[in-house]
């Protein structure tokens, strides 16, 4: 599988930058470990300085000076407006629909945005035991927008997930019953997929620089639906790449 890159940036950089760009200034964003953490903090350091970071550990409006290495870093509690208990976080904040944007990862995702982070194989006797659901099922159910960040490959983008950890639009795309919007964007290292407005089938709508429709199709385990017009994603800017590098190097922002 070809990895689109340039001299300046990798496909992983592009994925994180594309995710960061989706955050609007003022959004309340629930941040998980890994790429979401990078993307949300990147947004805060670039175009969305007033993006509000909420961590499921209980930190509300955290303003981490360095990229946190876990969702429970002391820096998060120390810089948050308020720190609440985990039950309160899930009941009064996530479940109540106060999150504008939730980020999710996936070990497997199907064409209707259903996500597996639990097991490959059978639940009782799995071939691969994955970390599990964590906060994802409730984020998937209740956030205003849900952005999935995941590298695209036929092993990950599967016809049918082994286990539904978080519900997208259900087995046939029509079973969604939760109050939140469901996965609104799937951002990969190839481009962006969005649910079809009618059928909810994930559809390729944007491509990262240097990636072809054929590569995206080849990286998908089902016959990928492609939008009539594909938007070309702008390459990461110098400012975005600088901020990303600083975050990865855990350089502190000026107070």
């Amino acid at each position: 599988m070809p990895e689109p890159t340039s001299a300046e940036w990798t496909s992983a950089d592009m994925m994180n930058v594309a995710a960061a760009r989706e955050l609007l200034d003022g959004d309340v964003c629930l941040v998980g470990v890994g790429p979401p953490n990078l993307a949300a903090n990147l947004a805060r350091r670039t175009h969305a300085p007033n993006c509000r970071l909420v961590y499921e550990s209980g930190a509300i409006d955290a303003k981490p000076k360095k990229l946190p290495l876990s969702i429970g870093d002391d820096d998060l509690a120390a810089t948050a407006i308020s720190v609440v208990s985990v039950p309160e976080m899930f009941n009064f904040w996530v479940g109540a629909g106060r999150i504008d944007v939730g980020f999710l990862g996936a070990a497997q995702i199907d064409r209707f945005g259903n996500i597996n982070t639990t097991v490959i194989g059978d639940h009782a006797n799995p071939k691969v035991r994955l970390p599990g659901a964590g906060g994802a099922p409730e984020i998937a159910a209740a956030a205003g927008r849900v952005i999935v960040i995941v590298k695209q490959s036929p092993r990950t983008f599967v016809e049918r997930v082994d286990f539904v950890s978080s519900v997208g639009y259900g087995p046939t795309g029509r079973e969604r019953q939760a109050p939140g919007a469901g996965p609104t964007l799937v951002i990969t290292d190839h481009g962006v997929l969005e649910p079809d407005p009618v059928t909810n089938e994930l559809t390729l709508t944007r491509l990262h620089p240097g990636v072809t429709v054929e590569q995206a199709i080849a990286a998908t385990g089902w016959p990928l639906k492609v939008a009539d017009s594909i938007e070309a994603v702008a390459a990461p800017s110098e400012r975005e790449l600088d901020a990303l590098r600083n975050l990865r190097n855990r350089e502190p922002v000026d107070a």
Partner: protein
Amino acid sequence: MTSPVPLADAIAEHVHDGDTVALEGFTHLIPFAAAHEIARQGRRHLTLVRMTPDLIYDQLIGLGCADEIVFSYGGNPGVGSLHRLRDAVENQWPHRLVVHEHSHAGLANAYSAGAARLPFAVLRGYRGTDLEEQRDIISRVTCPFTGEELAAVKAVNPDVSVIHAQLADREGNVMLWGITGVQREAVLAAKRAIVTVEEVVDEFPEHTGAVILPNWVLSAVSVVPNGAWPSYAAGYSVRDNDFYQQWDAISRDREAFLAWAAENDLKESSNA
């Protein structure tokens, strides 16, 4: 409960073979020292409850202390897999581990219901997931006013909950602050509760967001400075991120893990 007791005494008296045990702390204040003492005393057949098994349960599982686990996210945060947990589930090493699996919201609410001595809790989420197939712990309930169907989780009531906190006072009341996770609920849901603390003070300081637990809901308090290492205690220590990284290599290999256990005087339990 008033005077602190040695940790070994607290574990000996309150943690028994076959108990359902919750050692809580969400990234912060994870009671590692207490877990190691449980292993040293050779406890077996435990049902371990914890939102994030983290290294603390990876170690107890690898040492063979646990028959069952109740959890909601079993990764090494920011690093990757919990290899001992995976080896137990995928390969039954050192023996079979029965998995009961929640989402964070589900397990947090299960503790809350337990703390209120209610048999179940109601929440949004879960619906349509395959987690619902665990009908003994996740079900549905219908709102008697609106007819809406919602998720329900069975209450969790550990035999004993163990937490680490920053402070106890002279009367044995306990104070913790920073990210306080689900510790209050875990302690109040349990039949017995053990707390390890960084130190004992005459008077609690003011801390916004602090949780205070009165001595009469606690079974034992033990003074164990740095008892949360390699996690941290806000105001006392920082997270040992390097150890979390190193654990990946240690835990990935059974021999390396057993060597680590032996070096840390944790071997006895695993082969008892």
